């Protein structure tokens, strides 16, 4: 692939983000018609991707990229094969229609510009996700879809339900994204493979790895949360709080399929093992059944569709993990069919809501005369969803039964699951597409009439696409199905199914499904009542569990904060010093780095010992002193002892400074103390004395041992020698300490002066500033009389 073509691909990946930047300004100028202009961006991507169809269907792949973080070998790279191309076409194609639909749906909404901007941002993230080759590129886009989905679900952020749904989706899918990251990093670490294309080319490397199961579980954690597999399905129906264009785009056609995309992408590297072919069908099959049962119970059009989306995702996961060529083909066909009919039905539900004022299926009747175009599109999509000819859904369902039908108990179970699931999906499809339109018209909150072209264009195009793809199945398989199935299976997998049914078991199972479905459709009200009763009897679901989890999290962090930060200064100081002592002592003990037992220094002189002894006495007096003034005076004693030590060991400058500072400290401290009317002594309870004492002794011991260890080692004298050698020749000074301070390290000294200045200014400010409600005036009081406290 040439550099020019690589540049174009990159530009196409960036295009939605650029369009998102301009969306608010365009909407300000053009109102809802800005959607027509903005739809040009996904349309351009769609056409660009179509142009690759020939190359990809001939078995080619398109790769490209550039180094992103070369130091750790991370690239920004893309990889286009049959799988990613089909996804890119769905994302950009349906995206075009959704942008137009959103313009009509949110016509006149003050935040339409922001909404279109979010939708385009999401489109860019999703497109990047399916095109990404490098693991980290993939992860960044994966989390970006979670974040943009958060923004879209929470679009109507003044409602609490909306905020809750947005947060829930973010926590579930974002948390799953972290699992995925861990899984991908594990693969990267174990195999040294950092991109999808290399992983696909590496054959059995991952399957043979001892870390296979761990990596699999982590990756499945990402895929199952994103694709709403039971028991983590609950966020998807809640996400219906978002405006309908979001539900149609993210929560049916694209984002929730990201998990399925990941499984399909990894199938050649991770599939064909017992774990893969057990976990995926079991979770997928359970999700399929649970989803359809919960869907039947709903009366809100969007919620009914949302739960069938959950079940369709379950079906896709089940097929992807079933492990036969036909199952892969069925998954591919069903994925495309589902995107087309579900996107259409969601838009229909939105149009009904928009024009009639309600989405409650029990309050809608006889809209067919008022909304003929919408009805036609809804009917076509529902027939496809039911798996009836001549629509694409029929091909998908035939292929599903080809794939599942066998006489082993395992296969029979899943055939049964598929029949029940498909039959119930037929029920929902017809409940959404027929019930609101048939019968005699009833009073609806708004006087219903056909929506504008922006609202019916999307459903009509998607429904027609479902018909055309089935009628021209030969072309469609050659361009889309076969390359995609081959990419998923990892080997050439030609798809050949057409509308002409062959007499056999699959056809019989299809007829059985339709019969069961029609029976259930007629008895849908009884079925709904029965399921509601069962759910009421259970009384708990993962959705409520999420609330409990969140409340528990808040309570737990509140308690943990109260425990670790009780608001007591002495507690903080104790913890700090206890950790300092541990940090010094533990490594010395653990790594056998304790200093040698020192010999008694032979050269020690009596006056040195006497000064240190006086210092120790001063310290002792500070601690045991009953009243404060004694303590302050004793403080001066230890300070002067230190000053004398400096004097004895060749540091007269230090000694003078220390004498001055100690004197000033003691005088100021004593002056201030006498102005405070405090108790003479500071009482400390015995328990606290013991704890503080233990920490203090541990700290002192730690520093003694540390200093012994340091002085027993060798000292790097290079800097000292440099200063000794060059003080006079370069800096013309005899006092080396002074030369260091004012010359070699003059800037440091400037910094020191600045610190002193700032401290002085802060002190001045503290003394000047007065709060309005003073509790007690001490400053104005005369200097405290020399009481017993002062004399002591």
């Amino acid at each position, binding site marked *: 692939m040439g550099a020019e073509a690589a540049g174009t691909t990159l530009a196409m990946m960036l295009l939605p983000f650029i369009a998102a930047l301009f969306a608010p300004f365009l909407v300000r100028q053009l109102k809802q018609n800005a959607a027509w202009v903005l739809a040009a961006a996904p349309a351009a991507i769609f056409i660009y991707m179509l142009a690759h169809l020939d190359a990809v269907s001939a078995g080619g792949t398109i790769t490209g990229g550039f180094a992103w973080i070369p130091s750790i070998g991370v690239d920004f790279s893309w990889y286009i094969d049959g799988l990613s191309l089909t996804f890119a076409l769905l994302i950009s194609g349906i995206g075009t229609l959704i942008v137009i639909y959103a313009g009509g749906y949110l016509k006149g909404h003050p935040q339409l510009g922001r909404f279109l901007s979010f939708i385009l941002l999401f489109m860019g993230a999703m497109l990047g996700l399916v095109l990404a080759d490098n693991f980290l590129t993939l992860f960044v886009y994966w989390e970006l879809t979670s974040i943009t989905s958060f923004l879209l679900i929470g679009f109507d952020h003044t409602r609490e339900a909306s905020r809750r749904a947005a947060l829930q989706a973010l926590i579930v899918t974002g948390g799953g994204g972290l699992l995925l990251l861990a899984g991908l990093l594990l693969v990267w670490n174990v195999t040294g493979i950092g991109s999808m294309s290399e992983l696909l080319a590496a054959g059995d490397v991952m399957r043979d790895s001892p870390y296979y199961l761990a990596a699999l579980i982590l990756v499945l954690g990402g895929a199952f949360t994103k694709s709403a597999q039971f028991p983590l399905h609950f966020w998807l129906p809640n996400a219906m709080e978002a405006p309908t264009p979001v539900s149609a785009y993210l929560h049916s056609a694209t984002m929730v399929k990201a998990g399925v995309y990941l499984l399909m992408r990894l199938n050649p590297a991770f599939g064909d093992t017992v774990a893969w072919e057990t976990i995926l069908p079991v979770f997928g099959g359970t999700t399929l059944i649970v989803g359809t049962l919960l869907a039947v119970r709903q009366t809100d059009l969007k919620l009914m569709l949302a739960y069938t989306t959950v079940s369709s995702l379950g079906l896709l996961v089940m097929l992807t993990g079933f492990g036969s060529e036909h199952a892969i083909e069925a998954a591919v066909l069903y994925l495309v069919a589902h995107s087309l009919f579900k996107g259409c039905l969601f838009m229909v539900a939105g149009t009904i809501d928009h024009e009639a004022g309600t989405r409650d299926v029990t309050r809608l009747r006889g809209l067919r005369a008022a909304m003929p175009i919408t009805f036609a599109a809804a009917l076509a999509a529902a027939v496809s969803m039911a798996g009836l000819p001549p629509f694409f859904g029929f091909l998908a369902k035939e292929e599903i039964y080809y794939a599942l039908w066998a006489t082993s108990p395992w296969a029979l179970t899943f055939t049964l699951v598929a029949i029940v699931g498909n039959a119930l999906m037929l029920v929902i499809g017809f409940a959404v597409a027929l019930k609101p339109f048939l019968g005699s018209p009833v009073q609806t909150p708004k006087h219903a009439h056909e929506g504008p072209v922006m609202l019916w264009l999307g459903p009509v195009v998607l429904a027609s696409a479902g018909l055309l793809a089935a009628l021209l199945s030969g072309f469609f398989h050659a361009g889309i199905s076969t390359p995609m199935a081959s990419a998923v299976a990892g080997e050439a997998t030609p798809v050949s199914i057409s509308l002409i049914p062959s007499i056999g078991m699959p056809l019989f199972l299809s007829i059985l499904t339709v019969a069961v479905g029609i029976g259930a459709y007629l008895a849908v009200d009884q079925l709904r009542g029965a399921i509601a009763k069962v759910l009421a009897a259970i009384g708990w679901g993962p959705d409520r569990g999420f609330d409990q989890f969140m409340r528990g999290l808040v309570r737990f962090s509140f308690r943990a904060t109260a425990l670790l930060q009780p608001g007591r200064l002495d507690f903080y100081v104790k913890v700090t010093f206890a950790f300092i002592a541990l940090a010094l002592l533990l490594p010395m003990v653990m790594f056998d780095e304790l200093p040698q037992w020192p010999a008694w220094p032979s050269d020690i002189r009596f006056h040195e010992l006497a000064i240190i002894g006086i210092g120790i006495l001063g310290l002792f007096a500070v601690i045991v002193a009953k009243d404060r003034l004694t303590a302050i005076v004793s403080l001066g004693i230890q300070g002067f002892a230190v000053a004398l030590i400096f004097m004895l060991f060749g540091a007269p400058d230090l000694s003078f400074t220390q004498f001055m500072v100690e004197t000033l400290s003691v005088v100021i401290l004593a002056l201030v103390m006498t102005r405070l009317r405090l108790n003479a002594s500071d009482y400390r309870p015995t328990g606290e004395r013991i704890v503080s004492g233990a920490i203090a002794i541990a700290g002192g011991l730690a520093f003694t041992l540390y200093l012994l260890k340091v002085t027993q080692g060798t000292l790097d*004298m290079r800097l*000292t020698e440099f200063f000794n050698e060059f003080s*006079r020749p370069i800096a013309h000074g005899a006092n080396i300490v002074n030369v260091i301070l004012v010359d070699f390290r003059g800037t440091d000294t400037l910094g020191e002066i600045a610190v002193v200045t700032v401290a002085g200014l802060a002190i001045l400010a503290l003394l000047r500033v007065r709060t309005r409600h003073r509790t007690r005036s001490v400053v104005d009081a005369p200097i405290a009389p020399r009481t017993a406290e002062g004399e002591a």
Partner: protein
Amino acid sequence: MEPVLAIFVGLLFTTAIYLMTSRHTIRILMGVAVLGNGVNLLIFTSGRLTRDVPPIIPAGLDAPLIPIANPLPQALILTAIVISFSFFAFLLVLGFRAYQELATDDSRDMRLAEPADDPLPPLGY
């Protein structure tokens, strides 16, 4: 000589930590003052000790002839003494003003920033 000073430094640290873990601002202040001495002496000792000979180059020479005290730790400590003194003065005034405003020198009674009866954060969304 270093081992003896190491023990003295340890005692300075012990005293400083014991004082700083008190609840009363004055004790904490005294602890800060002692801690400064402990740290300075720690740096001084780890630069090794040389008796009596300050790091001064005799007149007429370009470099010292006999071993002199290590000037590097002395330069560091000189800076440290001054800064710890200004820090001490600041803390002293802070404690004084806190006493004026809050009428207490007990740090456990100073709960303006972290109130004792902080309510549970909202549990909704």
